[in-house]
């Protein structure tokens, strides 16, 4: 006999993600899912963001990596609540991992939760976590053709941080071409040209983030 199913294969993840989101909303936590390739500067961006915003709001962090506590240790030095998720060989964070990590975070004392996803431009975009905004970090050394090669991750994103702009003078990176390629597939996206080394552009990015986290209050 034939059984008609027609069920999204990622439904199990979507159901948990919705529960996560309800819990975040209940505690008035704004959640940002930060995705990029390895080495684009996710951790640096999180640290620089926290340094600029921690007097204005309470920030928590979830760090995702295949192995090690290296990133969590860096965040701890900023005196922020942090949970490290190690996925072993897993190429993305999923909603179930976040639901476990949340249990070790003081949600009632957090206004803004920054989730650093696994460094990967393919898989993380398929898994919603319960986030309110999706942010992609691209960096100048990666080249301006990433949106052409990995379009899907940009389709559902709310903002793109272009990091390491202090290196523009040394590398061939066509900023206009990069932005055009992203806008072609996602015209509503916001761009922030930043350098976590010099601090350039970070205030503008933090203003966007502050506005995003005030959205619910």
């Amino acid at each position, binding site marked *: 006999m034939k*059984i008609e199913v027609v069920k999204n*294969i990622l439904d199990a993840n979507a159901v948990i993600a919705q529960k996560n989101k309800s819990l975040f909303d209940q505690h008035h936590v704004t959640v940002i899912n930060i995705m990029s390739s390895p080495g684009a500067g996710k951790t640096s961006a999180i640290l620089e963001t926290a340094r600029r915003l921690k007097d204005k709001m309470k920030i928590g962090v979830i760090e995702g990596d295949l192995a090690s506590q290296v990133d969590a240790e860096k965040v701890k030095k900023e005196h922020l609540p942090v949970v490290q998720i190690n996925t072993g060989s897993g190429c993305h964070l999923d909603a179930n991992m976040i639901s476990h990590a949340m249990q070790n975070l003081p949600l009632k004392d957090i206004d803004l939760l920054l989730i650093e996803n696994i460094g990967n431009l*393919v898989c993380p975009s*398929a898994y919603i976590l319960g986030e309110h905004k999706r942010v992609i970090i691209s960096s100048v050394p990666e080249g301006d053709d990433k949106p*052409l090669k990995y*379009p899907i991750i940009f389709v559902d994103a709310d903002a793109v941080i272009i990091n390491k702009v202090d290196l523009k003078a040394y590398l061939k990176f066509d900023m206009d071409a990069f932005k055009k390629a992203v806008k072609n*597939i996602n015209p509503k996206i916001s761009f922030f040209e930043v350098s976590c080394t010099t601090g350039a552009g970070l205030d503008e990015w933090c203003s966007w983030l502050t506005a995003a986290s005030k959205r619910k209050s």
Partner: protein
Amino acid sequence: MHELSITQDILNIALQEAKNAHACKINKISIVVGQASGIVPDSVQFCFDEMKKGSIANEASLDFTIVPTQVKCRRCQHVSSPKDIIWMCDKCGSGEVDIIAGRELYLNSIEAEQEEAYENRSS
């Protein structure tokens, strides 16, 4: 790249549906995979052949329906099926496009055999 967990989800859904229908054996699982879903069918097949062992899907085959990526031009409204991953309108050449198909990833149906006792009862 995350075909292992996707395959586990496919198997979980199929086994649950089979259980709901009082099936004792799954013969075929039909899934629909968009070209832009990020999932490689060969890789799912590889994982499935290992993971199905010892379950009632042990002899099941996987049937893939591949949905080509389609983009709609925001300038001329033309719908194109890009041959590679560079998304652009094949009529006016614009890159200003919305993806309208190719992200599908769902289990469409299963073919299964019902337990004899249940089959007799329902007939």
